[in-house]
């Protein structure tokens, strides 16, 4: 078996009715894997940018990028994985946590270490926002897990090339 790798793929698409289902359907119909997917319009409101995290060997990922390109509404596809695609990846996580008087100080210390923010406070809970690469978010969640997490929401990654290169 060829080695499987995680790939971060950005897709620029026409911002049209049904595009998301075409992309999701392509993955499910051909047995490709989606780990996460995020979509939002770009500066040009007629296009959207998707970031897809997928896992596969080289042959599968080659098929994924070719099949994506074949969809009529897809304008451009970039696979960020590989040496010539130096890029930045970011994700956001919201964590709602039990905030008892006994552990509030500990929570705030973690938030500070991970350069997060407390974005909502109630008598019993904090909601914390942390942004960063996947590893950092995983580490943060693990560190505060013993304190009593009520809920986690992650955005899925977004990615962008460093320097002058651009998808749009």
């Amino acid at each position, binding site marked *: 078996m060829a080695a499987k790798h995680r790939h971060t793929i950005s897709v620029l*698409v*026409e911002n049209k*009715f*049904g595009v998301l*289902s*075409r992309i999701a*359907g392509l993955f499910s*119909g051909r047995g490709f894997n989606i780990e996460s997917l995020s979509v939002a319009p770009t500066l040009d409101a007629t296009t959207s940018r998707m970031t897809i995290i997928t896992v596969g060997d080289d*042959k599968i990922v*080659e*098929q994924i990028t*070719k*099949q994506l*390109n*074949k969809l*009529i*509404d*897809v*304008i451009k596809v970039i696979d960020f994985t590989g040496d010539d695609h130096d890029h930045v990846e970011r994700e956001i996580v919201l964590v709602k946590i039990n905030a008892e008087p006994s552990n509030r100080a500990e929570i705030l210390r973690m938030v500070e270490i991970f350069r997060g923010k407390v974005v909502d406070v109630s008598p019993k809970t904090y909601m914390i926002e942390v942004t960063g690469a996947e590893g950092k978010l995983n580490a943060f969640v693990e560190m505060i897990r013993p304190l009593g997490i009520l809920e986690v929401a992650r955005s899925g990654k977004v990615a962008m090339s460093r320097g002058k290169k651009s998808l749009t």
Partner: protein
Amino acid sequence: MKMSGARILVESLKKLGVDQIFGYPGGVVLPIYDELFKAPELRHYLVRHEQGGVHAADGFARATGRVGVALVTSGPGATNAVTGIATAYMDSIPLVVFTGQVPTALIGNDAFQEADIIGITRPCVKHSYLVRDVRELAQTIAEAFYIASTGKPGPVLVDLPKDVVTEETEFVWPEAVSLRSYNPNVVAHVKQIERLADALEKAKRPVIYVGGGMIAANGSAELKKLAELTKAPVTETLMGLGSLPTDHPLNLGMLGMHGTYRANMAMSHADLVIALGARFDDRVTGKLDEFAVHATIAHVDIDPTAISKNVKCHIPVVGDLKDALVKLNADLKKRKVDWKGNRADWTAQIAEWHAANALAYAKKKNVIKPQFVLETINEITKGDAIYCTEVGQNQMWAAQFLKLNGPRTFLTSGGLGTMGYGFPAAIGAQAAFPAKRVFDIAGDASIQMNIQELGTAMQYRLPVIIVILNNGFLGMVRQWQQLFYGKRYAYSCTEFQPDFVKLAEAYGAFGVRVTKPDEVKGAIEKALASGRPAIVDCVVDREENVYPMVPAGAPITKMLLA
């Protein structure tokens, strides 16, 4: 001038040069039909089932190379069309299918005859549109035809809510279409062409492996030049049949599961395989690990996803096949090579494989062999005909035995393998070419899947000849059960069948049954002479098998021979 959406549709079809459409009316498409009533120059064929309508449009498209057009109503009309759309998708046939839809305000409400046809067909269309504003209609129709017919062709579905076809707007026809996300005019890279020419010059044992892309690209003349110049043998897939005339000395016939012995042996011993518009389907390659292992693989295809999908390609050329072949031939002509001398050993080897004569069958005096029926058809038509097939043994025998004079004369459901395809496709081909003789080579099971289209053939006087190779079985299923399931014929015997002669007569068509070999020729000639749609019911040897056969998953050199 302001026009209704329905009128805009009709005017757009005229602008596109469409003159024949296949369809079936129903509630939400009545405004469109009302406009068709006023436009007799657009000939509408009322089919008997929407599946038949889409297959007929598909047969029209395959026979002519033009875009086939079908029109059906919402809900069941649309869902009935799905098999036809999927058939065209798998074989890359240019179609535009218009489906009615409930009014936009009712979409999603489970309204009467509502189906999410865009969602249902999403994996089997090249593209689809739900038109939500009449002002987008003309542009959408222009895009649909452009997408269906360019690049790798395919079916495009346009879903038309009732209010969109009744509302009015100015009709503005877009004279040119361009889409920033779709650039189909791929020109083959000259450097890659040069690499391919180098490989061909060096090769000792080349094989040109031709698929349906050759038909789609209208590349036959260039293929002939290439083969004749370089003395390279050609093998065709089921979809590629007719690219080169069957009797051309360099044509090895079909390859793969039911391919000829020489074609499969040549592929397996080749040092260079040049795939032209083919996609290394599992029915062609057999066991992948042992497929063409000695060969450098070159592949010319308009579709980048086809390249290196199943078999690793060493010389990829993405582009229009005809354009690529024009360039390749020009390059090769400049080279001083003793092509004939270089090929002497290879040609001799192939001739030796051919001598094995793997298509031979035992003729019987009192029993009709299905192969004999096809040979008789060859004798009568001399290849001057369009052949459609159903799916199964009838299809494979037709592929092995019919002699084709050129492209677009063999219409068959290769990818999806749709039983019931052949007859309605023959109706579409006959509608396109009224003066040609059109045959549907059928089995007794397949023909019953769209037999209702006899009504269409009668109504429009389309004298399609249905030749049933009647063995009273689902023949190919039975063959697999015999060979791989211990002869347990689970539900593959059609213990009841209609009297096909009376059935034809009930429609006013010509019907004749033959049970002896010496009756076959006369019966087919009578059917042709009747000038009517006809059924020639040939009662054939019940347990005849299609050979050679490569068992599924075996290497293509491991052929079962008769």
